[in-house]
Each structure stands twice: as structure tokens, then as C-alpha cells.
């Protein structure tokens, strides 16, 4: 699908939805490989389930809405949403959770609002929040990362676990899964232990949980490449990460025993993937330069607030959805000055 500009002397830029989405997928590949290495084949299986379901739902909804199939199915936006959604899921989650989440995202969050370009909320995050609220127990089944795990499952073991719910003989869910670093810190802080005591556990590495802390770097790699290619605006990820770090640093200096360091916040959970891949969704993010800084900073602040005082260990999804809601207002108040008008002067209606 192409949206050529109409003013005369410009050449049409070679950006189309399909091209942008292809580059996002390319940027996700290193992180996907890394996640598969750390957390097992389940990551790839989840992506497969989510992408298939997303395309099927998209086709059904397009047919119901009497829209042509090829342009919307070929622009890969559904694939990107499904891919990101699948990366948020624990690798051992039963197949029907991935199906329910992404189907809800495509049908309710995307097509009921009018399809790509009209959805006020990020579909991948809506899908994740739906399954997180509905199936909290299943969503905690994160496999132990490769550097810590004693047993690793093969590809067929994963297929069995995801589709049939069977584990190989002699293994239990407890032996294969553990809490995420954010979850663990949250639980143990609740038991009145200080961060230094918590970090003594071999589970924790230099910045965050061992294994967990390095996955984010691969997202960072892909994200920086996207920013270099101007597929995403650098302002949003910068504002997200800066505001998260600034808040974390302030509280960490105030009481290092109770508030985790900025590095922990940066390298735990979905901070980096959220900043580069989820907050930058062109449809649901703010569109003005100043607005993007405010939008990103809002997400960073909300992530910190939810992680530290909220009811959930990780707040990226909620933070993004809340700021999605605020984006139109932010855009309204940060419209750039029209060239040729003076500051404070209203441009012609």
C-alpha cells in the first residue's frame, strides 16, 4: 500500500508499509535468535502460532468487512504485531493462549477500530494485556535461561509441551521454569529483604538476572539499526530510556536498599524492546517531534511507577497503552510552528 505525497516537486519516497514492516522484521531477527538460544525453541514455535493465527484472523476480518485481501495481508503489519506479541510470551505457554491473545489483538484492537492506521492502541500490547489479565498463572511459565538451566528441552519436547501439555518423563514445570528477575526482586522486596541480599543469589548477574540481561542488547542492536534507517524516530526510545533511568537513578541514590539501580531497570524485562519496537509503532505513537519526547518520557515514567509501586512486576505494556490513549492530546498541544508564521501566531485554519 502506497501513500504518495501530493505536493508537486517531491519524489515519492520509497517507503511503503510493507517496506517498513520488512525492516522491522529484519531488525527483530538477531533478538529472536538470541531469545531462542536463551529460552529455547518455544520462542520460535510461539512466533509460528501467532503469525499463522494473525494472518488467518486478518483474512477473516477483511472478508467480513468486504475489503480486498492482498494489500492488507501483504503489508506484513499483522506479521510484525504477531511477532512482537509472541516475543512477550513465555516459551512454554500453551498454544491456545497465543491464539486467544493475537486473535483478540487482530479482531478487537485492530479491525473493529477500522484496521491498520485507525487503531488507537498497539495491537500486540492489547493482546498481551488480555492474556496477562486472564491467565496469570500460565504467563509466569518462563523457562530458565540457557546459562542457568540444568536441563534443556529439544524441539519436539517443546511441541509436546505447548500443544499437548506433556513434559518429558522425569521433568516438572518447577524444574524448567522460574520467576523473571523483575518478579523475583518484587517478591523478595515484599519479604523485607534488601536489594544487596537479593542480588547475592546466583540467579542474578552483573545487571539483572543472568541470561536475561543480555537479550535486551540484541533488541538494542536491531533498534539502533531501525533508528539509523529512519524507520523509527530516535526521540521515542531515547525519551523512554532516559526518563526510566533518571527516575531509577534518583530513587536508587535515595535508598539503594529498596530501589533497584538504573542498570537493573534497563536490562530487565521489556524496557529495551518496548522502547525501540513497541513504543515506536507509527500508528499509535505521537507524531510531532516534541510530542514524541513527551510521549516517550511518559512511557518511561509509567514503566518505573508500575514496576516499583504497581500491581504487576512489569509495566511496559500498560505504560504503552496508557500513553497511546494520551497520544492524540499530546499531538494537539505540540503541533509544530508552520514555516513562515511567528511564534504564538495562529496558522490559518
Amino acid at each position, binding site marked *: 500500500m502506497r501513500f504518495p505525497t501530493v505536493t508537486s516537486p517531491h519524489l515519492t519516497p520509497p517507503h511503503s508499509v510493507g517496506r517498513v514492516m520488512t525492516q522491522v522484521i529484519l531488525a527483530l531477527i538477531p533478538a529472536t535468535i538470541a531469545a531462542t538460544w536463551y529460552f529455547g525453541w518455544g520462542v520460535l514455535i510461539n512466533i509460528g502460532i501467532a503469525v499463522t493465527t494473525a494472518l488467518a484472523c486478518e483474512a477473516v476480518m477483511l472478508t467480513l468487512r468486504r475489503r480486498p485481501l492482498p494489500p492488507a495481508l501483504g503489508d506484513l503489519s499483522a506479521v510484525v504485531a504477531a511477532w512482537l506479541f509472541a516475543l512477550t510470551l513465555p516459551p512454554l505457554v500453551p498454544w491456545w493462549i497465543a491464539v*486467544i491473545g493475537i486473535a483478540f489483538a487482530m479482531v*478487537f484492537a485492530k479491525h473493529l477500530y477500522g484496521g491498520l492506521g485507525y487503531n488507537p492502541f498497539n495491537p500486540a500490547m492489547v493482546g498481551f494485556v*488480555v492474556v496477562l*489479565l*486472564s*491467565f*496469570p498463572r500460565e504467563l509466569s511459565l518462563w523457562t530458565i535461561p540457557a546459562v542457568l538451566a540444568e536441563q534443556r528441552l529439544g524441539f519436539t519436547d517443546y511441541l509436546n509441551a505447548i500443544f499437548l501439555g506433556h513434559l518429558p518423563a522425569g521433568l516438572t514445570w518447577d524444574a524448567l521454569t522460574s520467576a523473571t528477575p523483575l518478579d523475583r526482586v518484587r517478591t523478595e522486596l515484599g519479604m523485607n529483604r534488601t536489594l544487596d541480599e537479593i542480588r547475592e543469589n546466583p540467579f542474578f548477574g552483573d545487571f539483572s538476572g543472568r541470561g536475561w540481561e543480555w537479550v535486551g542488547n540484541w533488541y538494542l542492536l536491531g533498534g539502533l539499526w531501525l533508528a539509523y534507517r529512519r524507520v523509527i524516530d530516535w526521540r521515542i526510545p531515547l525519551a523512554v530510556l532516559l526518563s526510566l533511568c533518571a527516575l531509577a537513578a534518583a530513587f536508587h541514590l535515595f535508598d539503594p536498599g529498596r530501589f533497584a539501580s538504573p542498570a537493573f531497570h534497563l536490562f530487565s524485562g521489556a524496557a529495551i524492546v518496548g522502547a525501540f519496537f513497541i513504543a515506536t509503532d507509527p500508528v499509535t505513537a505521537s507524531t510531532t517531534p516534541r510530542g514524541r519526547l513527551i510521549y516517550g518520557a511518559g512511557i518511561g515514567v509509567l514503566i518505573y511507577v508500575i514496576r516499583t509501586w504497581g500491581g504487576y512486576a512489569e509495566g511496559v505494556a500498560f505504560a504503552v497503552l496508557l500513553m497511546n490513549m494520551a497520544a492524540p492530546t499530546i499531538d494537539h498541544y505540540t503541533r509544530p510552528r508552520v514555516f513562515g508564521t511567528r511564534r504564538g501566531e495562529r496558522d490559518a485554519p
Partner: protein
Amino acid sequence: MADNGLRKVLADGLWHNNTGLVQLLGLCPLLAITTNTINGLGLGLATLLTLLASNACVSLIRNLVRPEVRIPVYVLIIASVVTAIELSMNAWFHDLYLILGIFIPLIVTNCAIIGRAEAFASKNSLPRALVDALAIGLGFTAVLVTLGALRELIGSGTLFAQAHLMFGEAARGLAIVVWEDYRGFLLAILPPGAFIGLGLLIAGKNVIDTRMKQAATVRAKAAQAASTA
């Protein structure tokens, strides 16, 4: 003619001007308590009773009340009726009363009730006001029960759970487990489920209305063609 008028009042209340689906009045209890079918039915019937009593009173005194003070008078009538209903539910359906909690006294603030008093009962005779109350109340109850059933079915995989709260111990058998070994879909029970469910019901009603209108125009055209031929 009178019969025809009453039929229109009934059809308006039950379908064309339905409180829950068209007027979108009384959404607070509608969204908050419909986590299962029986809750919906309980609150629906309480609202129906309130409507019947308040519409009847307002219609009877419609020629006595000066227009300047009509709103406080209506509010007083509705508040006394709701207080009576609240006390009776507390006495006879105590468990259901505990579940519905604050939403029973809050029937006072249900704008559908004062809306009917002001817009209909204060201008119409007693029989018409009663029919209107019945239609509006039944229409509201139907939406509450449908939404409650929808959310209960998807959220916990049962229907008519806790029926004994309303119909006594004998009704315990009414509870149906639709899906054995259902894990539950919490979203349907939580507030978002209420909004999404109501949205789907309204969409469904609009689809039915469009279909009926299309069928009506087709029939009208056919009749016209037949009469010209």
C-alpha cells in the same frame, strides 16, 4: 386505536428504545453487576419493580404537582420506592442482597427511572404508564440477563450459577456447567469484559435492525410492484 398505542409503547420499551442498548441509560449497574446471569436477573427485577411503582405514583399525581417542583417530588417518590425494595430484598433475598450491595440503593440514581417519570408517566394515564414501566423494565432486565449470561458463559463456563440465591434451595440444580474443566477467561468477568460485551450486544442489535429495514423495503417494493401491475 388505544390498543395500537399500547403496543407501540411495549415495542419501544422492549426494543426500539431499549434502555440498555439504545438510550444507554443506567450503564453503571448494567456494567458493574452483570458478572453472572442471576445477578443480572436480580437487579433487573428490582429495577422493574421500582419502575412500576414510581411510574404509577407519578402518573396518579400528574395533575396535582406543580411543574416547578416536579423533579424533587419525583426523586422523593423514587427514593421511597427504592428504600422499600431494598429493605424487602434484605429481608427475603439476603444473600443476593449482599452480592448486589450498593447497586440496589443506587437504583435511585438510575437515570432511566427518573427519565421515564419525567418523559412518560407525568404525561400519560395510569394504564399507559404501567405498560411503559413494564416494557422498559423488561427490556432493561433482558439486557442485564443477556450480558450476564454472556459474561458468565465466557468467563467461568457456567450458566445460572448461584440460582439458589434467588429461587431457593430447590433451584440449585438450575446451575449448568457448560464446559467441564474450563480454565476461565478472567477478562470477561473483569470490567473490560462488560464494555466489550455491551458493545457486541449493541452491534448485534444494529445488525438485526438493518436486516429488518432491508427486508421491509424489499417487501414494500414488492407490494408497490404488485399494486401497479
